[in-house]
């Protein structure tokens, strides 16, 4: 009795899978796919929904997950493993932009039963672009600009010169530090001429960015 898992897939496959980025499927994924097969396909679809909520940043309800896996008598290790393998499958498939039919055929090759695969791929298809957007958002960005505030001052006089009569811009930039995770604040004051140069250059950069979109 092999529970619908083709015997070939139980050995180290050496086959390439698109959802693994054209690499071998990791051994642990193979092992946990057989754990997934133990819950019913209806519960599987609900579990997929929970895992996707977690990946999209909406939080996972562990109590619900525990209830879904209670019938199959999953221990805490099994529950964590199922969530991990589903997270891996969804993220990896979205990362490599795999369409849902290829994913379905590859998962069935690895021994996930047809009903379970169909549930998983339907969930994947529904949330495919939302997941890719989330992954794009969390991609490495250094020193992300968080906010800009400005004010224009007019200097009337100073200790050096009685009548200065010049406008200046004060710019406050708040960005995430490249190496630290905290927000760093930079305040600069810019004279009118320098500010004009800055603005022109930035507008040229903006034109270039728009041309690329």
């Amino acid at each position, binding site marked *: 009795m092999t529970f619908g898992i083709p015997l070939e897939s139980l050995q180290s496959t050496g086959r390439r899978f698109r959802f693994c980025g054209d690499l071998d499927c990791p051994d642990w994924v193979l092992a946990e796919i057989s754990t997934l097969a133990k819950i019913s396909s209806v519960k599987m679809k609900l579990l997929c929904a929970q895992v996707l909520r977690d990946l999209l940043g909406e939080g996972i309800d562990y109590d619900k997950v525990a209830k879904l896996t209670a019938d199959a008598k999953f221990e805490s290790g099994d529950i964590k493993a199922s969530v991990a393998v589903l997270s891996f499958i969804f993220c990896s498939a979205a990362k490599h932009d795999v369409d849902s039919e290829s994913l379905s055929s590859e998962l069935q090759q690895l021994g996930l039963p047809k009903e379970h695969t169909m549930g998983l791929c339907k969930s994947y298809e529904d949330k495919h672009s939302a997941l890719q957007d989330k992954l794009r958002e969390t*991609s*490495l*960005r*250094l020193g992300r600009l968080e906010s800009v505030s400005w004010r224009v001052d007019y200097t009337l006089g100073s200790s050096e010169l009685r009548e200065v009569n010049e406008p200046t811009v004060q710019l406050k930039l708040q960005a995430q530090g*490249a*190496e*630290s*995770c905290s927000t760093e604040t930079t305040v600069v004051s810019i004279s009118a001429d320098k500010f004009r140069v800055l603005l022109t*250059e930035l507008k040229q*950069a903006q034109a*270039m960015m728009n041309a*690329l979109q």
Partner: protein
Amino acid sequence: MLLVLSEEHKEHLAFLPKVDTAVAAEFGRIAVEFLKKGTSPKIYEGAARKLNFPVETVQHGVEGLMFLLTESAKLMISEVDFQDSVLVLGFSEELNQVLLQLYLQHCSQIRSILSLLPPHPPAYCNLEWRLDVLLASRSLRQQVVPMVTMKLLLSTGGGNHSVRVVQTDPATLQHLITTLEAALASMKTNHARRILRNIK
């Protein structure tokens, strides 16, 4: 190899035969908990009140137990040596057995805790990367320069993390990969294999 206990240590442990063996076993369990999670002075006070002993005596007793366990685990002394070392204290046979069982059960756990103590150089934790193409800069337009930016997360001991950001061009990255693969392959040479075989 025998454990040589200092006079002060023997004095501290002398508290144990004054209580029931069951209570001593409980202190043993507390000592192991403290080794895993850190000490908690409230437990000393509670125990001292219940047993009618000064707090200091209870504290020294537990600390003496903790030290006995860490020294034994550190030197990985055998069952026989542990029993002989403890014999010096002149405890009852029952108490000696309790201590022996405590040591045997928790030896490997204590050793793994002790292995966390020495300073570690920063260790690899995580790597994020991105592939960019530089198209233009303020000084030069119409460029095509690919570069890979990597954010390396390192863990220095004690749960602290440090971050390093590096940038490289694809050629250097390829060189980096080749060098690292050569390092990995050196594990498979006969010389490395012979050494690994001889380390138990």
